[in-house]
């Protein structure tokens, strides 16, 4: 169980994640950020809860294109992530990657990838390397529900089970693949059931309550770390915003959105802390203000003041220097 102190810390991390993403939204509307932008509000308890149960900066993490918060939880400096979204040389991928390709190898955040389902075999491959080298690390692959309809899902589950690879698959099931509802694209909507045919242990739980996520993730991480084989954990969640910025959300109702907002992961944890005593709404609001000031004065300022990459270095990093 998370201690009260831990809960206060992860609440802060979730608020930072939320405010960071909301500030990205604003910067995108101001055309400071270009390209595609996939935001995380609503799903914070997933990445933060799972990594709370794992070892950020030690375990190897890989994910799809909704990747900012995963990187920050692994240890990336929010300033470097924001600078990347601005396409600056000081960005964590030196402005060459962008929102969908955040990389921070020093913190073992092995990247965001934009091909849905692409990271599955890469994660299994990292697990293969861990297996060969004999370390205590595990590989963790965060992807959405719709990635499971790619061939790479099935090919990877088979190989991960066959070779007993230390890889943890986290399915953040937010009920939509871009703009198509899960039940309209997927024959079996309970994703955790789909790995049973490969003999992979799996589970499903609420992805909005970070205490629930943490408990399930702890079991999953222990399973993989003790080399009992791969594990698949499905977290039931919801993205409050659209798939990307170009999404008008015409495929779902405002009522459904409001219902899910009742289960905002930040409010769930905040209310619990207040109910348990020793925490107040005033403290929460002060923290929000402090975080907003940090994002504005440090994160955004850093991104805006950082230099662009030099055109002379256009072809650097295509091949090794």
């Amino acid at each position, binding site marked *: 169980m998370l201690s009260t102190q831990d809960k206060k810390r992860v609440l802060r991390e979730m608020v930072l994640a939320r405010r960071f993403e909301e500030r990205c939204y604003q910067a995108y509307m101001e055309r400071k950020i270009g390209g595609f932008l996939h935001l995380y509000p609503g799903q914070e308890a997933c990445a933060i809860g799972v990594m709370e149960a794992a070892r950020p900066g030690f375990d*190897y993490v*890989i994910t799809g294109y909704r990747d900012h918060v995963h990187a920050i939880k692994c240890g990336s400096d929010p300033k470097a992530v924001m600078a990347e979204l601005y396409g600056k040389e000081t*960005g*964590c*991928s*030196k*402005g*060459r*990657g*962008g929102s969908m*390709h955040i*990389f*921070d*190898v*020093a913190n073992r955040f*092995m*990247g965001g*990838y*934009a*091909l849905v389902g*692409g990271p*599955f*075999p*890469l*994660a*299994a*491959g*990292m*697990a*293969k*390397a*861990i*297996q*060969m*080298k004999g370390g205590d690390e595990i*590989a963790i692959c965060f992807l959405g529900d719709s990635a499971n309809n790619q*061939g*790479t899902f099935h*090919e*990877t589950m*088979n*190989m991960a089970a*066959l*070779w007993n690879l230390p890889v943890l698959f986290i399915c953040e099931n937010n009920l939509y693949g871009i703009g198509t509802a899960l039940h309209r694209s997927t024959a079996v909507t309970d994703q955790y059931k789909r790995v049973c045919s490969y003999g992979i242990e799996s589970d499903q739980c609420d992805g909005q309550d970070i205490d629930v996520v943490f408990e399930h993730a702890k079991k999953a991480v222990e399973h993989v770390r003790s080399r009992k084989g791969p594990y698949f954990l499905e977290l039931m969640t919801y993205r409050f915003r659209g798939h990307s910025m170009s999404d008008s959300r015409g495929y779902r109702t405002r009522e459904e959105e409001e219902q899910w907002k009742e289960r905002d992961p930040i409010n769930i944890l905040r209310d619990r802390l207040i109910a348990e005593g020793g925490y107040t709404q005033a403290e929460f609001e002060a923290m929000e203000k402090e975080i907003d000031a940090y994002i504005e004065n440090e994160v955004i300022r850093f991104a805006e003041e950082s230099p662009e990459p030099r055109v002379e270095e256009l072809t*650097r*990093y*295509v*091949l*090794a*220097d």
Partner: protein
Amino acid sequence: MAEMMYWEAIRRAHDEEMARDPLVICMGEDIGVAGGTYKATKGLYEKYGPLRVMDTPISENGYTGLGIGASFLGVKPIIELMSVNFAWLAMDQMFNSAAKVRYMSGGQLEAPCVFRSAGGTAHQLGAQHSARMEKVFMGVAGLRVVTPSNPKQAYGLLKSAVRSPDPVFINEHELMYNMKGEVPDEEYFHPLEGSEVTRSGTDVTLFGYNISVHWCLKAAEILAKQYNISAEVVDLYALAPLDREGIKKAVAKTHKAVVVEEDEAPCGVGSEVMAIINEECFWELDAPPVRVHAALVPTPFNHTLEKASIPNHEDVVKAVLKLFGKA
């Protein structure tokens, strides 16, 4: 110098690299217990065991991606794709992951993988087992492409590819695995860039790679004996990056060029070499350069049709004679 077959040279390179570095592994369909479709990994399973010589499921994109992921953490996988036709299925991982990861991570991450695959037409294998696809690979930023025309290159290019920090695609040929040739007894690393003058000549330059080098050599022999034409043969063993300087130098010497490929013409090696000649050597040319290439058809099964779809040394001779106004 010992004489060995193309497959033996590849096997030797695997063996030496795996003996040197415990993080070198190989993976692919039937490469372990079965010893490899073309014997390129024969005996390695017995020597290095199943964790390093991995018989994979028939899941090309999946196991290729798995090898790439392992390479992120310092493993050096030699990934065999049994046929280049199956490599289509793995192109997503090769192109989207391996070739781009260094760039899109701003130089933080690299995928030092080796992809080996048998291309080319063999004997009546039909449309889905006869493709030549080097033209697709050579147009992808971040990927090196080499294609050995003899056992020495097959050995030395694989050795260099394993040591390269970049992903390397090695395009082999189904009909060449039993070809014999001299391979140095000592360790040898063939450069991953450049080209080689395989036969010296003064009247015309024949550019070939992989199997078409042999058509060029045979054609050069006929041209010398029967037509008194001295042809130089240049082996473009590196297709990406192409040896722009080497091409320039070769054309400047003879002022006439023929580009020979087993692949179909559109957007291919021939098109690219012709473009380089146009950009670099236009004023050196005595005649318009000529391409020799396959017909643009899915490779037919029927033997006669198959043969008609693929060029050979006679086509090279004809092209040269045409260039000289003798046909």
